[in-house]
C-alpha cells in the first residue's frame, strides 16, 4: 500500500519524516480508546498527507518505570530499517501519552486474520510465504544483536498488498546492551561469557524452554523456538497446548520435547480435522523446536531450508489470504462491539502483564505452582482486562489467563449452563472455574461459540477431552502436593523434584536479596535522619538559645 511503498523509497540514512511532531488534528476512522486502556492503536490520516498511519498511544502515567523501556522501544523502532520490520515514522508525547506513529498495516495481525477467517489454520503455501518474510526480519534482527523475544502470529502484520512485517519491539532487547547493564567497567565477565539475556520476557505459549528456565541465559535461538511455535500456530489456528493453562504448557515444554504428534495428542477437542502437512514443513518446525538451543538452526540457515524453496510472493498471500477477509474495522465490530482496541493493544496490555510478572520477581516455575488454575483461590485475585473478556479474544485471554480465568468467563458460563457437561462440572466443585475455561477453549474457534450459540456435539466432545486433560492435571497436582509435603511420589519425579529444588533455591536467594535491600534502605533512611538533624545541630543550638 501507499505507506509501504513510500517507506521503501526513503533513503536509509535519513530518518527525517514529513510527519508533524504534534497531534495536529487527525482524521481517525475509529472511536478513541477507552480512558482505561494502557495503550491503543488506531489508524489516522495526518493532515497534508494522504497516507494512513497507525498510531500507538501509550498512557505513560500508568507506567512506573523511568521510561527506559519506552526509550529502548522507540529507539529500536527508529533505528531498524528492513522491509519486513515495522519501524516507526516518529514518536512524541501528547500530554501523558506517548504516540508512536507507524505505517498502517491494513490487514491487521495474522492472529486476527486467522481467528476471523481461518480458525483451522492457513494452507502450507501461505504459511511458507509468511514464515519466509518473518525469517528475513529475524535474520536481520539477529545480525544486529537484537532479540525480538515475542515472535507470534499476533505480532506479524500484513498489509493489503500481502506484504508482511514483524512488529512490536516492546520486549525486544539487544544482547550487546543488556550484557553490560549490571557489570561495571570490568571486562572479565563479557569476555568469558557470551552475550546472553537472563530475564524472562515474552508470551508463555511461545516461550522457549531456556527462556522459562532463564538462569543459564538465552540467545537468538530463543526466537527460533518461538518462530517454530508460530509456524504451528499458523498451521493449526492456535499455538500448541493453548487449550491448557499457560503454566501447564510451560511445564510440559520443559519436561519433554514435543512435536507434531504431541501436538495432536494434546490438541484435544478440535482435532477431528485431518490436516496433512508436507515432510519438509514438519522437518523445518522440528528443527526449530529442538530442546537444545544450540541445535536449532539460525534464522539465516533456516531461510535455506527446502520448505522455503519455490516460495510464492506477497501477491499470492494477497490473493489467498486477504480475499474475502473482513477489514480490520469489520473484525473489531464482530468482536463484540464494545471494544475499540486493536489486537495489538491486547498484546500490549498482555505484554505489560508479562513484564509485571518479571518486575515483581516471579518466574514461571513459580507460576506453575502459584498460578496454576488448579488452585482456584489463586485465580480470583487478578486484574481483568475488560477488552479480553469479549468473545473474540478468548484464545488470547487464555494465554495470559492463568490468573484471570474465572471472572472472564461470565459469558461462557452461560453457555455451559445449557450444556450436558454441567453435572460433571459441578462434581468437580471448586475446579469449575477451570472447567468453564476448558470447555470454552474446547471450541477453540472461541468467538463462534458465543456468537452462534452452543453446539451440543462440540460441547460434549470438548468436555470429554477436557475430562481427560483434567485427570492428567489432577495427577500432576497430586504429585506437586506430594512434593510439597516432602513425600516421595512415584518414580517419575526425579527431574521434577530437581526443578522444585531449583525453584525453592531461587526463591530463597530472592528473599535474601529482598531482605538485604530492605536493610540497606532502612540504613539509608536512618543515615538521612541523622544527616538532617546533624547538619543543624551546630547552628541549631546557636539559634536555639536565641529562640
Amino acid at each position: 500500500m501507499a505507506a509501504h511503498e513510500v517507506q521503501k523509497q526513503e533513503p536509509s540514512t535519513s530518518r527525517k519524516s514529513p510527519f508533524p511532531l504534534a497531534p495536529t488534528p487527525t482524521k481517525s476512522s475509529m472511536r478513541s480508546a477507552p480512558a482505561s486502556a494502557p495503550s491503543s492503536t488506531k489508524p489516522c490520516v495526518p493532515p497534508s498527507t494522504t497516507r494512513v498511519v497507525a498510531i500507538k498511544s501509550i498512557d505513560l502515567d500508568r507506567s512506573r518505570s523511568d521510561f527506559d523501556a519506552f526509550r529502548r522501544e522507540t529507539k529500536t523502532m527508529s533505528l531498524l530499517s528492513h522491509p519486513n520490520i515495522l519501524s516507526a515514522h516518529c514518536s512524541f508525547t501528547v500530554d501523558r501519552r506517548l504516540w508512536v506513529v507507524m505505517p498502517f498495516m491494513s490487514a491487521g495481525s495474522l492472529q486476527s486474520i486467522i481467528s476471523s477467517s481461518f480458525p483451522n489454520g492457513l494452507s502450507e503455501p501461505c504459511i511458507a510465504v509468511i514464515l519466509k518474510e518473518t525469517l528475513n526480519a529475524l535474520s536481520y534482527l539477529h545480525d544486529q544483536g537484537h532479540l525480538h523475544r515475542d515472535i507470534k502470529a499476533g505480532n506479524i502484520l500484513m498489509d493489503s498488498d500481502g506484504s508482511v512485517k514483524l512488529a512490536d519491539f516492546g520486549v525486544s532487547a539487544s544482547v550487546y546492551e543488556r550484557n553490560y547493564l549490571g557489570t561495571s567497567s570490568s571486562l572479565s565477565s563479557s569476555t568469558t561469557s557470551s552475550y546472553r539475556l537472563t530475564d524472562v520476557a515474552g508470551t508463555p505459549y511461545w516461550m522457549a524452554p531456556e527462556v522459562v528456565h532463564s538462569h543459564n541465559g538465552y540467545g537468538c535461538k530463543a526466537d527460533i523456538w518461538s518462530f517454530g511455535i508460530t509456524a504451528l500456530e499458523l498451521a493449526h489456528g492456535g499455538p500448541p497446548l493453548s487449550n491448557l493453562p499457560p503454566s501447564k504448557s510451560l511445564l510440559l515444554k520443559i519436561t519433554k520435547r514435543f512435536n507434531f504428534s504431541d501436538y495432536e495428542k494434546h490438541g484435544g477437542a478440535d482435532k477431528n480435522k485431518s490436516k496433512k502437512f508436507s515432510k519438509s514443513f514438519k522437518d523445518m518446525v522440528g528443527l526449530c523446536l529442538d530442546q537444545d538451543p544450540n541445535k536449532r538452526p539460525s534464522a539465516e540457515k533456516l531461510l535455506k531450508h527446502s520448505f522455503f524453496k519455490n516460495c510464492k510472493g506477497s501477491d499470492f498471500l494477497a490473493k489467498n489470504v486477504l480475499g474475502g477477509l473482513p477489514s480490520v474495522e469489520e473484525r473489531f465490530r464482530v468482536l463484540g462491539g464494545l471494544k475499540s482496541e486493536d489486537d495489538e493493544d491486547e498484546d500490549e496490555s498482555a505484554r505489560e502483564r508479562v513484564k509485571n510478572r518479571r518486575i515483581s520477581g516471579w518466574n514461571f516455575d513459580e507460576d506453575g505452582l502459584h498460578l496454576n488454575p488448579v488452585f482456584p483461590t489463586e485465580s480470583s485475585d487478578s486484574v481483568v482486562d475488560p477488552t479480553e473478556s469479549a468473545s473474540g479474544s478468548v484464545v488470547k485471554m487464555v494465554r495470559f489467563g492463568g490468573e484471570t480465568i474465572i471472572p472472564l468467563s461470565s459469558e461462557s458460563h452461560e453457555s455451559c449452563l445449557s450444556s450436558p457437561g454441567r453435572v460433571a462440572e459441578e462434581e468437580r466443585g471448586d475446579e469449575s472455574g477451570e472447567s468453564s475455561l476448558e470447555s470454552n477453549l474446547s471450541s477453540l474457534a472461541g468467538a463462534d461459540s458465543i456468537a452462534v450459540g452452543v453446539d451440543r456435539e462440540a460441547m460434549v466432545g470438548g468436555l470429554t477431552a477436557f475430562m481427560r486433560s483434567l485427570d492428567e492435571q489432577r495427577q500432576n497436582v497430586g504429585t506437586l502436593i506430594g512434593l510439597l509435603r516432602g513425600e516421595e511420589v512415584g518414580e517419575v519425579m526425579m527431574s521434577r523434584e530437581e526443578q522444585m529444588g531449583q525453584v525453592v533455591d531461587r526463591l530463597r536467594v530472592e528473599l535474601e536479596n529482598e531482605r538485604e535491600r530492605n536493610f540497606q534502605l532502612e540504613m539509608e533512611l536512618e543515615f538521612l535522619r541523622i544527616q538532617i538533624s546533624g547538619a543543624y545541630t551546630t547552628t541549631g543550638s546557636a539559634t536555639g538559645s536565641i529562640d
Partner: protein
Amino acid sequence: MKGLFKSKPRTPADVVRQTRDLLIYAQRSPDSRESKREEKMAELSKNIRELKCILYGNSESEPVSEACAQLTQEFFRENTLRLLIMCLPKLNLEARKDATQVVANLQRQQVHSKLIASDYLEANIDLMDVLIQGYGDTDMALHYGAMLRECIRHQSVARYVLESEHMKKFFDYIQLPNFDIAADAAATFKELMTRHKSTVADFLSKNYDWFFAEYNSKLLESSNYITRRQAVKLLGDILLDRSNSAVMTRYVSSRDNLRILMNLLRESSKSIQIEAFHVFKLFAANQNKPADIVGILVANRSKLLRLFADFKIDKEDEQFEADKAQVVREIAALEPKELS
C-alpha cells in the same frame, strides 16, 4: 585481487588500519569519480562490521580477548576514533549502528589492565563537544548519544562534560519533540547526574545556583508532562544520595523550592505526586527548618494534612506509609516561628 586478500587472514590490527585508511578517504570531499567512492564506502562499512564481529563475536564464535586487545591498541594508537566520529554522518544507517557498537565496546576494553580509551579521550576531550552537539541533529542524535553515554563512564570525561558549557543545553535536549531523542538525552543527563558520586557532588556544590535555577524553571515547571515527571524523579535520586547531603540541606531550605514541590504535589498525575512526595518529605523532615519554610507549611497545614489523608499508592508499601506518617506528624506539630 580479492582472492589474494582472502588467502591471508587479516589480523585485527590490519582491519583497524584498513578502516582508518578508508575513513581518511571518506573524510575527503567527494571527487568526480563517484562510482569508485561508493565501492570504497561499501568496503568501509564491511570493515566496521568486521571490527564489531571481532569485539562482540558472532553467532558461531565468542570474542577472543587477545584479538580484542590487539584491536583496541591499534585503534587508539592513532586517531581512528576521531576519524570514525567525524565520518559517522557519511556512513549509511547500518554502518552507523555498527560503529556505535564498536565505540561503545572499546570504552570497556582493557589493554594490560588499563582502560586506554580513557587516556585517549582525555587527550581528545573535544570529541565530547561533537557527540553532545549530536543531539541537535535528528539523524545523528541516537548514534552520538549512545556513544556519549558510553564515554561518560570514564570519570574524567564525565567531569569535563559536567563542567562544560554543554551542560546547559541538556535542559533543552531533554525536551526535544522527538521522543526517542529526548528520552536518549534524558538518559544521558541522568547518567551524568548519578554515576560518579564525588564528581557530581563537587559539580553541584560549585554550580548550585544556576543549575537548580534552570532545573526548577525549565524542568520541574515545564509544561511537558514527561519532563516534569522525569525531573522530579531524578531530583529525588540526586537529593537522597548521601554524597549529595550538603546540596540536599541547601535545597530543602529554600522556600522557592518548597513552593515548586508543593505545586507538583497538587498535580493530577499520581505518578508525579508520588515522586514529588519523596522530595517534599525532605523539607518536612528537616529538623532545622528556616522560619519561612515553617511559615509556608503552617499556612498550608490543613490542606497538606487533607492531601496526605487520602494519599495512597496502588500497592502496599510500608516504607511509604511510614514516611507519610512521619511527614504528617512533623507538619501537625509545627509551631509558627518568629523571625528573630
